[in-house]
């Protein structure tokens, strides 16, 4: 434990093993909406950011509670990790040590640190990428499809990246056994020659990886990108820190957005390899994601997600999870 004296601010801890160190940091953000607090009363009442930092100061896992990082410098740190990745063996070790650190922190945490212990415990319950059969399989598939020339080029500016986004969701606002809406979040992974970085976007509610949400689908970049940005801080007023910036509301037919718009945006960042404008979203503006045509399995209506729902065709039916593009 490095700094645990102010639970209203956050915590810092470290784990040392074989002359290597990994740091855990958590920061307390805004109070969650009442509806999410009722939906998951055992979770911390506040949005909490959590990250693991390696011994060279690089962030290799970050979990964002809301749209922006509580500590705005974290977005820049994530970007720095994308431009200066760690050697494979170090990063593999870092993820494994992070899991040990999270477990040890959760066990040692005093009751007043329960909110931080919660997220650490959830992290520790999941295997590190090098121990996870699913992530090992994915890495093998990526390597098998890697063009020969990609292995040796593009190491300026951070090298080439393969991106993967996993969509997790759950019914929310449930009453009896009926849930009138869905909450979703995305685990974004960046691969080079090993899994280098993960950004876990909780979108104000339950985080991906929590046992209360279930895996729905994945999107991949489908190609190797250079100069990847996933922090999106230069994307003007539509997004920052990888999430939508407009006001957050469930009736998002107007200007506002909700968690599923965040998820749609996060998945399209994976497709685009960057966080602003691109050719893979449906309007080339980086924040509009429409699924029209075949409609939905519910009422057959148009489905449209966007960070700024006032544009184009507004957001419709976005109280359900997006698909994986």
């Amino acid at each position, binding site marked *: 434990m490095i700094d645990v004296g102010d639970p209203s601010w956050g915590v810092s801890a470290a784990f040392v093993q074989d002359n290597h160190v990994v740091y855990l940091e958590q920061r307390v953000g805004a109070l969650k909406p009442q509806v999410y607090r009722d939906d998951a*009363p055992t979770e911390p009442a506040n949005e909490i950011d959590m990250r693991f930092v390696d011994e060279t100061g690089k962030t290799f896992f970050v979990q964002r509670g809301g749209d922006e990082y509580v500590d705005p410098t974290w977005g820049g740190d994530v970007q720095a990790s994308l431009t200066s990745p760690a050697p494979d063996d170090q990063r593999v070790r870092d993820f494994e040590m992070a899991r040990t650190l999270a477990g040890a922190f959760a066990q040692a945490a005093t009751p007043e640190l329960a909110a931080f212990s919660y997220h650490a415990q959830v992290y520790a319950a999941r295997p590190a990428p090098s121990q996870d059969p699913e992530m090992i399989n994915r890495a093998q598939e990526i390597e098998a499809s890697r063009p020969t020339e990609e292995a040796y080029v593009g190491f300026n500016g951070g090298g080439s990246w393969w991106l993967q986004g996993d969509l997790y969701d759950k019914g929310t606002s449930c009453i009896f056994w009926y849930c009138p809406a869905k909450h979703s979040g995305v685990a974004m992974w960046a691969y080079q020659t090993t899994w280098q970085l993960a950004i876990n976007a909780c979108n104000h509610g339950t985080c991906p990886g929590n046992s209360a949400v279930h895996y729905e689908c994945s999107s991949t970049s489908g190609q190797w990108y250079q100069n990847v940005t996933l922090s999106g801080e230069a994307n003007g007023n539509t997004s920052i820190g990888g999430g939508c910036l407009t006001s957050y509301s469930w009736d998002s037919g107007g200007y506002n957005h909700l968690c599923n718009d965040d998820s749609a945006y996060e998945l399209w960042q994976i497709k685009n390899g960057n966080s602003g404008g691109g050719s893979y979203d449906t309007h080339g503006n980086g924040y509009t994601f429409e699924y029209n045509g075949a*409609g939905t399995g519910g009422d057959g209506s148009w489905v449209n997600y966007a960070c700024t729902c006032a544009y184009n065709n507004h957001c419709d039916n976005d109280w359900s999870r997006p698909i994986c593009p």
Partner: protein
Amino acid sequence: MTKKLVVAASVVVVAAAIVVVVVHPWNRSPHHHHADTSSVHASAIDQTDTSVSLMAMMNAKDGATSCETAFLAIEAEQAAAKLRGSKSIFQWVAPKPDFLAQCQALPPVAQSCMMPRYRRDHRDDCLRAEPSADVLKKLVVGVPVAEPSFAK
């Protein structure tokens, strides 16, 4: 005597002030930049139709039985939706006598889970106690939730 009381009170006040000054730095490190943790960034979500419906049910009064509590919650939701000029989250609700009869035929745990606050506090138990869809649709039918399919 009055002077002694005044002096004693002054000592207490001064001591309290000292305690505040001394305790404060340990409880809240001055070098930490604190985010606004009391405001709700996503507060608008609590003002939406669905959230208002949910909160109306959560705050409804208890009935004499679990099933009566459940029906009172539905009535509270429908009243809130009407007051708000919005639609109920339920497409159809069984008439009260049918609702109570069907509900009382559920296993005891499932009956408890019909109470919104109980369900909130016993999520996993209630997930395990879920009755069949055929049984549930004799009680209430919710408005369908759209599941998107990809057709860009």
